[in-house]
């Protein structure tokens, strides 16, 4: 088992009367697989690409979790379906503009698919830890 430390820090000035500063550390010592890599994609909405095959990752249990990190290196906006969105609806999609990223616990129940909002080739950096 390996230990994964995930820290989130949010700092805001000028948003509210008092400045915001929030730091939360999440430590998970039951990690057995994971790593970070980059892939390129030419996918567009009509032909989404599978970024992650859910069948290759275990579902989280009461004692385990799976964490997903995705960063859009660019240049195009990437939209990801991560919540069993198998149709073409955008309601459950997450949009990553170039240079932005996300991290959250992933159910690993259905594939993560992705597409660009404009034709071209984009690069995506991702990591799955579970």
């Amino acid at each position: 088992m390996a230990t994964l430390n995930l820290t989130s820090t949010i700092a805001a000035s000028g948003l509210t009367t008092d400045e915001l500063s929030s730091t939360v550390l999440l430590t998970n010592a039951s990690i057995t697989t994971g790593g970070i890599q980059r892939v390129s994609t030419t996918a567009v909405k009509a032909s989404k690409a599978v970024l992650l095959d859910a069948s290759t990752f275990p579902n989280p249990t009461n004692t385990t979790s799976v964490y997903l990190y995705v960063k859009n290196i660019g240049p195009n906006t990437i939209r990801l379906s991560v919540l069993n969105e198998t149709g073409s609806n955008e309601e459950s999609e997450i949009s990553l503009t170039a240079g932005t990223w996300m991290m959250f616990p992933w159910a690993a129940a259905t594939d993560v698919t992705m597409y660009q909002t404009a034709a071209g080739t984009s690069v995506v950096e991702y990591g799955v830890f579970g």
Partner: protein
Amino acid sequence: MATVTNTITLTSNDLTSDAISLSISNILSATKGGISRIPLATTAIAGATVLAPAAQYTEGAKIWLYNPAARDGSTANDRIYVSLSEAVDPTTGTFTTIMLKGGEWALLPWMGTTKDTDKNLEAYGSSGAMVIEFGIFQ
């Protein structure tokens, strides 16, 4: 215009042969938002608590979700479910939501109105009296 800096740091010294150490930040110019703790009204999607109304936000909004409950580890009673679509797929249940166990957090963009259909951001808990810490910035 306010400045909001989001940073995540990911480290592991023993997962791979070489230690993993990743730190990335985004700086967002925001005009609205903040962080607060919100009690969740239900334990199902019906009547779930609206964290953010879609009509007030567009693509580029950032959301922060944190379950401050203690990690249970033996039951599923420490979970918070966040829906981007005001729904839970009956065939796959809670897999259509972002699930946060006690102590877990998420940081991600949210599209607000920039979708086929406007859907509010909603949350519910796995047991009564759950509280979510929620932040949104745009």
